[in-house]
């Protein structure tokens, strides 16, 4: 009897404790956020991502691959062959020559295989940066993204193929599966959620989606690597204990169409810096 009462008392304390502790947690959270915002402001003008933009520009202009052509003279990112200004913020978009909707990274990979003659398997073998290794595709995406700095996101959602991709992306975001029975929306479908100290943007809202798409591709201080949004999305699947999608998979493009579409109208600040 006595034991039960003790447990009851403990429960009461725990219940009372939750309120104030939660508020303190939020204050710490705000402070941590503010500190990192300061750091980001300081680093924005000296973001190592710029080093990858430089490399990407060289790669974009260089004649490469079995066909010995440059992307600058063969690759159409939706604004005309070789035109990169403003291309990033207007993707994903529908490409007639490929017959499908593509995001920036997927499109550049397509150009590398179709125009320059690279083998897809070769690019997909190690598609993301690790330690000192940065794949060429990452530098290329960073360069292209940098050419849309300070421009507004304008995914052409009125285009029927893009609209369809957006709707599929929305459905994928809500699709619960895997050993944890999770969907993207479990964590990213409502406001004010967080994991540990990390605020989770609500990608179904304009503000949340903007937070989610800004800063990619991003230079991650942890490990000092340049990472693309494709990497970020694949990592979401990994964290959900889903099977990881193949490189530049359809599912990533539709999710990016959904997220970037929701962010339409927001100003893209160029390749970012991440903790």
């Amino acid at each position, binding site marked *: 009897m006595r034991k039960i009462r003790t447990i009851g008392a403990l429960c009461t304390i725990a219940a009372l404790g939750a309120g104030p502790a939660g508020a303190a947690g939020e204050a710490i959270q705000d402070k941590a956020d503010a500190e990192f915002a300061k750091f980001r402001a300081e*680093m924005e*003008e*000296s*973001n*190592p991502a*710029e*080093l990858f933009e*430089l*490399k990407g520009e060289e790669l974009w202009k260089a004649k490469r691959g079995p066909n010995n052509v440059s992307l600058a003279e063969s690759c159409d990112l939706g604004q005309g062959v070789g035109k990169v200004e403003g291309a990033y913020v207007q993707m994903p978009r529908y490409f007639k020559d490929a017959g499908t909707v593509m995001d920036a990274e997927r499109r550049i990979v397509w150009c590398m295989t179709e125009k320059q003659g690279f083998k897809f398997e070769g690019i997909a073998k190690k598609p993301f940066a690790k330690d*000192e290794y940065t794949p060429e595709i990452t530098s290329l995406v960073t360069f292209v993204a940098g050419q849309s700095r300070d421009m507004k996101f304008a995914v052409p959602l009125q285009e029927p193929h893009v609209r369809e991709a957006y709707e599929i992306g929305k459905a994928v975001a809500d699709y619960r599966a895997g050993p944890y029975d999770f969907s993207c929306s479990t964590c990213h479908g409502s406001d004010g959620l967080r994991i540990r100290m990390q605020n989770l943007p609500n990608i179904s809202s304009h503000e949340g989606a903007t937070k989610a798409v800004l800063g990619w591709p991003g*230079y991650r*201080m942890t490990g*000092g690597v340049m990472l693309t949004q494709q990497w970020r999305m694949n990592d979401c699947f990994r964290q959900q204990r889903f099977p990881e999608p193949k490189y530049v998979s359809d599912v990533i493009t539709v999710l990016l169409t959904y997220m970037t579409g929701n962010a339409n109208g927001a100003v893209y600040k160029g390749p970012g810096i991440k903790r």
Partner: protein
Amino acid sequence: MADPMKIRAKLQGDVADIRVLISHPMENGNRKDSDGKVVPAHFITQMSVEVDGKAVIQGQTGTAISRNPVFGFKVKGAKAGDKVVIKWQDNKGESRTDEAAIA
């Protein structure tokens, strides 16, 4: 050859704010790769900054600096248009020199 640096030099009053981004692995020699082998040390050991032909900073750097480091300097008495020359050298004898004008 090493990748180019990115140098920004802006005048604020008579103080030049110089910022440089360097592309370098900065391996400290204590890490092991996936095969368990030590990754050999590879880091910048010497750095120098010249403004208008005059050495303003000379320094030795070590392993406690991150990959792709950013350095910032404030230099008094600089004028717009002055040439900034930055050099680094690493423990493998590789080096790189880049320049920019103060804006």
